[in-house]
Every structure is written in C-alpha cells, then in structure tokens.
C-alpha cells in the first residue's frame, strides 16, 4: 500500500491541511505568500511527508473571465453559456451578434472570448461588425466553435484564433466536450500560472488541480461516504464564491449532455471577500426581511462583525443561492427543487452552522418561495470527506 498522504486545499480565505486522521484549517495571512504562510503554520507537518505524497488543490483567485458572442439566445449563446458555466468560468457578458454594435465594450481584459453560431451547413453567420468589435476589445484568448463553413473567414480575420468543433450539431443539439476541455485546461493553466501557486511546486511533485474540479470528480462516489439520496445538490459556500454542484436529473432544460453532474459558480456570493455583494444581493431580495425576522435579527446585523453575524450571512447565502436556482428567479438555470432529496453542504459553512440552523433556512425557503412542505435531508460534510475523497482519488487515476 502507498504511504500516507498529506492533502492541502488553498482557498481564497483559508487553507486546510489534512492527513488520514486529522484535518486542520487556517485563515490565510495575506502579508505572506501561500508557501510562506503554509510553512509558517504547518511546517512541522509538511516535513513529515515526501514531495510525492503531498497533494494540493487550489481555488484561490481561480476563475477566468469570458465574453460570449453567439447568434441566438436559444441555441448558440445558451449552449456556450452552459459550457462556460460548467467549466467554472466567470461570464462577463453574452452578446447577441446581430446587435453587436449596441453593446458597450468591457474595459477589463477578457481571458477568453468564445464565438459561436450556426450549424455546419449554414454559412456567413458573422460579418465585419464582429471583427470591428474584436479590434476594440482587449482579450488574451479567442476560440471559435461555430459553423465549419465560417472557419476560413474567421481565421482570415481574427489573429491567433483557436478553432474547435462546432458546439451545435446538425440536429441543433449541444456538443460539449472540446470547448469544455479547452476551457478547463485554460482554467488549470491559469491556476498553475499564478506566482503564488507556482511556489507550491517546491513542496509537491504532483500536479496542482483546481478544487471544484476535484470536488466534481468525487460526486459519483459520494454515497461511499454518506447516505445521500439522489438527486442531490451540493453547496460549497466559501469566502469569495459559492459553488453548487447538482445532479443532472434536476434540470428540466432540453440540453442533453453526458455528464451526470453540473456545476455553477456564483462569483459574488461569499461571506468574507465578497461579503458586501452578498449583503447587496440580500437587500434586493424581497423576502430577506421576513427571513431576518424569522431568524430574530434586524438588518443592523449587516454592520456587525461577530460570530453571530457570520452565521446570519451564511444562512443568507444559502437562501439566496436557493432563490437563484429556483423558478422564483428566472436565472441561468432553474432546478427542480421539489425533486431534491438531499442537500449536501461542504466548505467553511460546516464549521459555522449546525444541521438545525441549515435545515431551518431550507424549510423557510421551501415554505415561503415554493409554498411546499417538502423537506429534503441535509448532510454536513464537516470533515471535508468529499474533498479528501477527490484529492486522494485524483492520484490513483494518474
């Protein structure tokens, strides 16, 4: 059997270090590099392990930005948006090509521009307006995943464009794989390229993966650790973002794909780094005051810095995420929440809230928003078993 392993997860707010029998978690010191911080706080532990037995994943500053240009809302834009979301990419804007001249050009550097439109037998989906727009935009990568017949014109007019197979097939169905792999690899390269993360190769011989990737890989095996009843939703509420992973059965979209589980990232919903935008979202939700009343606090709690305030923020984060994926808010994806059998919670939240506090919010949500007595089971992954399982499993497939 192999040696014991040390698993490290670097987040935007804290990192955790786990061995077979122990798990510890530390707030990050932003005056130090990750490596210095880690050796400072867990130096002794690190010394006990060989480089090949240390496995690291990171979600810190993770995330690329994309801008998507497509020719219709129901097909090209919808499919590309779906793929980008599932690859954990932050969508800055989606542009309907026929109106491209009406959009303002984002001033930030875009990591990757995705262009798509038309089935392979349809030609001339784009014209010069596209090239004019791109001239004004600043971006690092551009990928074309539209009609084959448009490839020559696209190549002629867009420098360094990467061309991948069309994401729309001849029956107007989605084809995910090549764009998804491309984006996942970009994301991976981005994480590895961060100076801070590069340093970490001083202590490990293994590839550093992105945390959401690791978690998503574990989902099919989740029942080896918990009695989770499918279909389920996994919420990972972190310092900067909230991730949800969910069984595909919960989506009533007509997008047919092969993956069993999908993932969504809510960039601006976190309880530390993006606390202000969480509060902003909360104040704009018409049910939040009722919820605060239900929790027996007032909105003054937003100004407070206390354990109690953190708890409330986390409860709000759960509520807001549920709203965002329900039919109450027409968002990118609506899940069939009445069919959910379990909610699995992982990440920092499990250290802060008890199962009862979480159930309290979930049942408030079902009653208020969905008018239902439905009561899914709540499972707390308080020992980071999901992440450990994924991180351990990772190197067995290498």
């Amino acid at each position, binding site marked *: 059997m192999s040696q014991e392993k040390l698993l490290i997860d670097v987040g935007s707010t804290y990192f955790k270090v786990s061995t077979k029998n122990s798990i510890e978690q530390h707030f990050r010191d932003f005056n130090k590099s990750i490596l210095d911080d880690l050796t400072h706080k867990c130096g002794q532990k690190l010394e006990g392990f060989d480089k090949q037995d240390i496995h690291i994943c990171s979600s810190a500053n993770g995330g690329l930005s994309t801008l998507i240009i497509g020719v219709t809302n129901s097909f090209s834009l919808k499919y590309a948006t779906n793929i980008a979301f599932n690859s954990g990419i932050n969508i800055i804007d989606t542009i309907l090509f026929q109106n491209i001249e009406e959009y303002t050009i984002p001033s930030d550097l875009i990591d990757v521009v995705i262009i798509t439109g*038309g*089935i392979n037998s349809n*030609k001339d989906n784009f014209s010069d307006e596209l090239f004019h727009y791109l001239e004004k935009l600043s971006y690092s990568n551009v990928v074309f995943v539209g009609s084959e017949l448009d490839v020559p014109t696209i190549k002629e007019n867009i420098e360094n464009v990467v061309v991948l197979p069309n994401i729309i097939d001849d029956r107007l169905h989605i084809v995910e794989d090549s764009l998804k792999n491309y984006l996942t690899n970009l994301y991976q390269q981005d994480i590895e390229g961060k100076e801070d993360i590069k340093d970490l190769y001083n202590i490990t011989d293994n590839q550093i993966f992105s945390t959401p990737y690791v978690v998503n890989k574990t989902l099919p095996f989740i029942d080896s650790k918990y009695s989770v009843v499918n279909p389920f939703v996994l919420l990972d509420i972190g310092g900067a973002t909230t991730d949800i992973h969910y069984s595909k059965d919960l989506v009533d979209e007509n997008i047919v794909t092969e993956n069993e589980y999908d993932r969504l990232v809510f960039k601006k919903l976190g309880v530390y780094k993006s606390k202000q935008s969480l509060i902003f979202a909360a104040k704009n939700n018409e049910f939040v005051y009722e919820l605060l009343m239900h929790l027996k606090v007032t909105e003054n709690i937003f100004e407070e810095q206390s354990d109690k305030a953190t708890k409330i923020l986390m409860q709000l984060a759960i509520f807001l995420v549920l709203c965002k994926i329900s039919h109450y808010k027409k968002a990118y994806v609506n899940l069939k929440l009445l069919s959910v059998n379990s909610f699995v919670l992982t990440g920092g939240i499990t250290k802060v809230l008890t199962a009862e506090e979480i159930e309290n919010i979930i049942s408030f949500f079902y009653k208020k928003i969905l008018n239902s007595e439905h009561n899914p089971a709540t499972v707390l992954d308080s020992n980071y078993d999901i992440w450990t399982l994924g991180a351990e499993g990772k190197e067995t497939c290498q």
Partner: protein
Amino acid sequence: MKVVTGVVGNDIHVVANRLIDLSLQARGFEVFNLGVNTYLEEFFDAVIETGADVLLISSLNGEAEGWGREVPLLKAKYKKLDDVIMMIGGNLVVGTGNAEDIVPRYEGYGFDIVCHQVDLNTGLDSLEAMIKERHLEVRNN
C-alpha cells in the same frame, strides 16, 4: 431546402408533427423538427442557426391566435428573417371558424401561407408553389 417545423406553445399534439416531418422529407426538404411545445423565439432562433428558408408552424389545440399576435413584435427584433417563408397550419382558432376571416388575420401577423384545417398535402403543395414563385422573382430581378 431547409425547413424548421414544430408545434407552437404548450401544445402537445404530436401526431401531425410526425406526419409533417415525414411528408416534408419525402418531398426532399431538409427538416429541423423542434417537436411539440416549442416557443416562438425558439422557432425564429432555429431558423437563424440553420439558415432555413421556410418556417412551418403547427398548432392544434387552439393556442395559435395568442401566438400569432406575438409574431410581428418578436419578428421585428430579428435582422435576418425577412426572406423566410412563414407558414402556419392546423386548428388556428378555438372551435371551427371560417377561413375567410382567419386567413387574412394571420397574414396580417406576417404569415405567407395560412392553412386552417387544410389537408397537409394541399398545404405543402402551396408551399412548393410559393417557393417556385419566389425563385422566379429572384431570377427576374
């Protein structure tokens, strides 16, 4: 020649849709069948993505009127639909109604061919006639 077809709105009557698909194919059309339960925007979007020449909408359960009224507004938002032949057929009103009232009304909504309770083959014949006609127009220009 490409045709996008389907049944509009919440309508789930599927039998006609299957027959239309087969008949169009038998006549040599390339068919993109969106099936039952298809919304107007999806029809128009499918025409854009496929570059179809014809949009053939069916409606059986009596919903057509409501959707018909939406057509001009939605279509005006698109910049590439002007040359598409738009056709609608099935049961275009609730109950029976007579074609003399119904046809001009739907033409007003922007349909080129309107087939209220018209036999499918007769309807498709008029489609082919219109295609021929339009091609002639193109050649004459």
